[in-house]
């Protein structure tokens, strides 16, 4: 194990030294013959986790270290988004094309479509949200487990579109926090793919999302 001195050299190389640290801890743990703590019988991510714990002891929670961990996690998250296609209208039909054989969302790791909010982490709002639909959408959003993201597809979901009308919610973001807006009526499948890549970038960069952190259900009476 490297000493703590290497951490104190300068702030510039702290990131690289801590990743070295992580690697050596990981190697240690993989070679550890003790049952239950070594690689034997454990999945790699458990081993990785343990390695991180040990390295963490040494580093006593350095900033650089957590960044690396988050990067690994974010990498996983961004490439395994499970979308819930909330297709209500014409955009939903175009979303079918995005999922379909030609545009093939699977290329971005997001092909596991789940209609149960408990199994999904990306809510794709594709279509007009009416006043009547508002409470349903919020309920679906609340049922999703964190971390969760929302992509609003099309003019209607983003702003009400050209329905400035008595029964149409003027954008899904009136009731739930939206991360990415994809313009178009309907957006071309290419635009939706682009929106997904933007979201992937946000996740990779761990971009802060105050709109989500500060969100409260508009229907909560209390």
């Amino acid at each position, binding site marked *: 194990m490297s000493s703590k001195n290497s951490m104190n050299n300068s702030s510039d190389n702290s990131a690289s030294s801590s990743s070295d640290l992580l690697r050596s801890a990981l190697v240690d743990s993989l070679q550890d013959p003790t049952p239950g703590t070594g690689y034997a019988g454990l999945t790699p991510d458990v081993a990785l986790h343990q390695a991180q714990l040990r390295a963490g002891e040494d580093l006593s929670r350095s900033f650089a270290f957590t960044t690396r961990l988050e990067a690994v996690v974010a990498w996983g998250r961004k490439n395994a988004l499970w979308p819930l296609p*909330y*297709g*209500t*209208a*014409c955009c*939903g*039909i*175009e979303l*079918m*094309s995005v999922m*379909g*054989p*030609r545009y093939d969302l699977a290329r971005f790791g997001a092909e596991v479509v789940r*209609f149960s*909010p408990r199994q999904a982490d990306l809510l794709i709002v594709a*279509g*007009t949200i*009416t*006043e*009547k*639909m*508002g*409470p*349903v*959408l919020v*309920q*679906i959003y609340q049922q999703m487990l964190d971390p969760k993201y929302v992509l609003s597809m099309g003019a209607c979901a983003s702003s009400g579109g*050209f*329905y*400035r*009308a*008595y*029964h*149409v*919610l*003027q954008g899904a973001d009136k009731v739930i926090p939206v991360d990415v807006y994809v313009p178009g*009526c*309907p957006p*071309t499948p290419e635009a939706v793919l682009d929106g997904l890549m933007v979201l992937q970038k946000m996740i990779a960069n761990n971009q802060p999302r105050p709109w989500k952190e500060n969100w409260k259900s*508009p*229907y909560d009476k209390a």
Partner: protein
Amino acid sequence: MTKLESLKQDLIGKFNIKDYKFIHSVGDDIVEIPKADVLALLRHLKSSGRFDFLMDVCGVDYPNREKRFDVVYHLFSSKDGSRLRIKTQLAEGEAVETATRAWKAADWFEREAWDMFGVKFTGHLNLRRILTHHQFVGHPLRKDYEADAQQHCDVALPIHFDNEEGRDGNVLDENLVPLNIGPSHPAMHGTLRVMVELEGETIRRAGCEIGYLHRCFEKMAETHPYNQVIPYTDRLNYCSAPMNNVGYCKAVEKLLGVEIPPRAQAMRVILCELSRIIDHIVAVGTGGVDLGALTGFFHLFTYREKVYTLFEKLCGARLTVSMTRVGGMAQDAPEGWFDDVLAFCKDMRGQVDEITKLMLENKIFIKRTQGVTPVSAKEAIEWGYTGPLLRACGVNLDLRKLTPYYGYDQLNFDVPVGTNGDIYDRYLVRIEEMRQSIRIIEQVCKNVPGGDYTIRDKGIVLPDKKDVYGNIEGLMNHFMLIIKGLRPPVGETYDATEAANGELGFYLISDGSGTPYRLKVRPPCFAIYQSFPTLVRGTMIADAIATIASMNLIAGELDR
């Protein structure tokens, strides 16, 4: 003797026709009657066999009139294709007897008229809101309701059913299991909501709630110039958007009294039939998915993409094409487009054979669909079924044959009909219709007429861009038409086309201004879906899912 006169002769002695007004205008027959006679007249017209369909019931609001509301009944005869419009006037707070006592089809249409205008129908068991949410106050299609006055809804309705004679729909049976499906459910296409009471897996009572996609189409139409309504029509049945464009423009053209040039007619026919194919692709493909057969979906959607590519070539958009204009098309087809269409047809023909094997000859598919929720021809007519679902029951009714438009009578094609009216037959008819559409397209594409793609009436169609920028006359015409707008003469008309799901009707009233005074859409699946609770009673829950899929409900036109 015209049909209207013969009707008049028939009614003499039976009704007090002194108070009746018989009008023939814009090619339509209209009878205005006092409200007390409505039900009796409807019953008479039905039992005498003159009219077998009640196509639509709707309201119209004239706030400055003494009796403010019109209630309008649209009748249709499948024998000779004749239509009759019955109108009656109601003052605020007045009620008319419900037409559900004559035709079951009136059920949801009357609920809608109540929701939109607040006209009452005595004897209707379920006169509650249908399109707007339950916390909505007021009636949005009244002229004094602001188009953008939104009202929020903060809670979804709990499980409820329709009231029946002597039974309150809100009281659930304690011995049964209530189950809510949708609107966010894969089999409910995102916007339908079905509630059932189960005994084991058998449905004892079912109900549906619609309106989750009520986007106020009709109000939007009243607040936009005629040509700007076209993009809204795209979004009615968005699986076959061009057909709605065509249906709407055809109605406006009828009111204007203009006929579009042969080339525009040919292009419209091609667009319509291409749309019919992709609409059926979605119906069959997603219908398979709802039964657990995913392969057909991926297979078929490849071909839908090809049609979208054709649309894209034609106008730049894939789904919402807005390709027609009042008076013709927005632009001519690019060079070689018709050849591309022909090439697609050749491709698609083999594909239809393949899908026949994949679905219709598939043992599991047959077991899941044959004999499930059959509808008899009589029942279907009673409910107001049209299109493939009606034909699946063995009724040979296709507006393209019965009242041909755009030269359909010159074309060679067959109308497939089923025998049992069950789910299997519905798919059978749809798949065969794809073949027939291919036939039609090939015939039209092989000799597309030359000439202009639109009429050139200065008061209807904008001049070419080169004229607008090139000479003062063109610039003036453009300016006038934009400022003044396209203004059909005062009057009203109902016009219907055979859309992918059945009769798509537009009832258009003009007060001579630049926006429609009232535009009522008669969406085919609205009439069909109202039969659902009756149809699935006593069946298994899985069959209900298959039934809903086979109805091909498109929320855009269902809820408008």
